[in-house]
C-alpha cells in the first residue's frame, strides 16, 4: 500500500485542526483542534515507521513521546482555561485581548 495514502490522511486531519484553531471561539474547542493536529503528526510518524520496517522503531518511540507531551499540554492548557474562566467568567478567546498589541 503506498505510504502516500497515510500522508494524505494526516494532511487532512492537520488541515481540519488548522480550521478549528482559526474558526473556533471556545477555548476548550481550540484545544480539541490542537489534539487533532498532534494526531496527524503521530500518523505520519507511525506510517514512516512502518515504511522503514525494522529500522523504523524510532518512529513509534517518538509517537509515544508526542502522546506524552500532548497529555501534559492538555493538563496545563485546561488549568489555564479554568483560571481564565474564574477571573473573567468567559472562555471566549476573542475576548482575551489583554496581551494583544
Amino acid at each position: 500500500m503506498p505510504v502516500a495514502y497515510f500522508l494524505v490522511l494526516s494532511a487532512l486531519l492537520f488541515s481540519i485542526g488548522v480550521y478549528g484553531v482559526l474558526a473556533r471561539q471556545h477555548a476548550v474547542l481550540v484545544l480539541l483542534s490542537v489534539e487533532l493536529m498532534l494526531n496527524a503528526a503521530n500518523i505520519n510518524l507511525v506510517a514512516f515507521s512502518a515504511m522503514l520496517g525494522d529500522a523504523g522503531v524510532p518512529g513509534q518511540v517518538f509517537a509515544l513521546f508526542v502522546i506524552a507531551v500532548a497529555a501534559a499540554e492538555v493538563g496545563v492548557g485546561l488549568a489555564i482555561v479554568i483560571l481564565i474562566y474564574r477571573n473573567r467568567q468567559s472562555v471566549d478567546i476573542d475576548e482575551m485581548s489583554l496581551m494583544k498589541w
Partner: protein
Amino acid sequence: MADTYLQIIFWVLFALMGIAGIRVVTTRNVVHAALYLVATLLGAASIYILLYAEFVAWVQVLVYVGSVVVLMLFGLMLTKAPIGSANFDNNQRLIAAICAGLVFAVSSYIMVEAFEGQEIDFTGTAGTNVQSIGEAIFSIYVLPFEIVSLLLLAALVGAIVISRRDEGEVES
C-alpha cells in the same frame, strides 16, 4: 489480495476519520465535539493497528480516549460553558476554511510528490513489536524518556499551581 482488503479498511477509516474530524470543528454542541474527537482518535488507533504498531495503538486508546478526552469533558463542565446550540465560531470562518484548504492542498501535494512509489510492505515483516520498542526506549532514547517524565511532573505541578485558589480568595 490481502492488500485489497487492507485498502478497503483504510478507505473506510479515512472516510470515518474525515467525517468525524470535520464534525469536531463544525458541531454546535461542545460535548458532541468531544465525542466526535473520540471517534477520530479511535480511528487513528485503528490506523496504527493497520500499520502493525499495536503498542502505540493501545497507548493512544489509554492516554487519549481514556484521559485526554475525559479531561476535556471536565474542562467543559468546570467552565460552565453553554452546552446547547450557541454559536462557537467567530466571523473568520471563510478565511479559516481557505487557509485550511491551502494547507491541505500544499502539504498533500508535496508529500505525494516526495514519497511517490514508496510502498509499505505488509507481507515481509510482522511489524515492530513491543520488545524492540522497549529496547529502543531504554537504550538509545533513555535520556528523552527521562526528560519526558520530568516534563510530566512539571506539568502536573504547574497545573495544580495555576488552578488552585490562593488563600483568602473568595468563591466567585
